């Protein structure tokens, strides 16, 4: 896959073959921590996508200037700057989401997905390829979080994106909104994902 794949394969690999959540198991903390609803999952996915895209762009542009020995701290500073921007923008414009995601916003810094792509891809490839890589990986991550959030919300709360479709007094699987439900739902989604991708291949 390193042999200069076309833009299309480069984009699609992040969504299916190297899906960050289901295949690579990167960025598990926000994946499990914020997906109690589809809206939160989508919000976290988009925030991460933005940071990933910007950090891939910057890292790819300055890759020849950074001495190899201090590249990891340099990448972390780049990522942390964009995370701070996201934090301030969310607090100012979408305070509800800012409150819901809470501590997981500053923790985007230590999302191994972002540092991993900076180190493994952006620091070795040119700008267009890095942008496509970030978009593919970011969308793969966002899709995974949204699907997990939707699954948990539907099972645990009987609603989707806040729209409730079961009667007020209906019993739902509250377990899926609680922490154990995150692990269990992701476990079954991973089985389904493996099953589906194996069929495609």
């Amino acid at each position, binding site marked *: 896959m390193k042999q200069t794949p076309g833009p299309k394969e480069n984009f699609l690999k992040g969504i299916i073959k190297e899906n960050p959540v289901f295949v690579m*198991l990167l960025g*598990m*903390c*926000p994946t*499990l*921590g914020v997906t109690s609803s589809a809206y939160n999952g989508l919000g976290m996915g988009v925030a991460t996508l933005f940071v990933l895209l910007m950090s891939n762009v910057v890292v790819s542009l300055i890759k020849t200037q950074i001495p190899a020995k201090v590249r*990891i*701290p340099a990448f*972390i*500073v780049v990522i*942390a*700057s964009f*995370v*701070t921007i996201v*934090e*301030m923008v969310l607090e100012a414009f979408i305070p509800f989401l800012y409150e819901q995601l809470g*501590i997981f916003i*500053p*923790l985007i*810094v*230590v*999302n*191994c997905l972002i*540092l991993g792509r900076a180190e493994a891809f952006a620091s070795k490839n040119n700008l267009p390829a890095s942008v496509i890589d970030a978009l593919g990986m970011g969308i793969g991550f966002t899709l995974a979080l949204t699907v997990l959030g939707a699954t948990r919300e539907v099972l645990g709360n009987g609603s989707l994106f806040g729209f409730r479709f079961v009667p007020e007094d209906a019993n739902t699987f509250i*377990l899926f909104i*609680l*922490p*154990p*439900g*995150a*692990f*269990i739902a*992701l*476990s*079954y989604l*991973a*089985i389904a994902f*493996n*099953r589906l991708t194996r069929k495609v291949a």
Partner: protein
Amino acid sequence: MEYWVILISAVFVNNIVLSQFLGICPFLGVSGKVSTSVGMSGAVLFVMTIATTVTYLLHQYLLLPLGLDYLRTITFILVIAALVQMVEIVLKKVSPPLYQALGVFLPLITTNCAVLGVAILALGLVDASLLKAVFFAFSSSLGFALALILFASIREYLELANLPEGMKGVPINLLVAGILSLAFLGFAGLV
């Protein structure tokens, strides 16, 4: 908050791994064997306690007076990264046996979100003081150790289990973590 409340809350009720989802990467990654999980827990205990001490002081006496609160994330992650390197160098010189035991785990800790997470959470404690913040970090790392070692012990048994093809690897580990988390849910309301 009393100290024992902080301890019980951090270890059992609000366990950082099983109910707050911090430090999931090492939790799933280095839990294959009990011995490595003990090493990892030791390294986290060490770094988390020192890191929170330093970040708390920095936040209280440098960032807040200067009105640079918004630089919190950048400052903390840099401090933690530098600190991990320093701990590694000092440990190598001062205590080779301890370095032998913890050495390989130290570089992994920089991107362990539990360390940054606890450093940030410690700032938000009710009536926080330096001592309470540090004690909170220490208790949280004990909670991390408990969850990690329990999980590793279960995984050692799973090696022998005969599982359906689709469950092998990641899915069964997540399922076990879910059941473990369910057990810890039983502590809710204790404090």
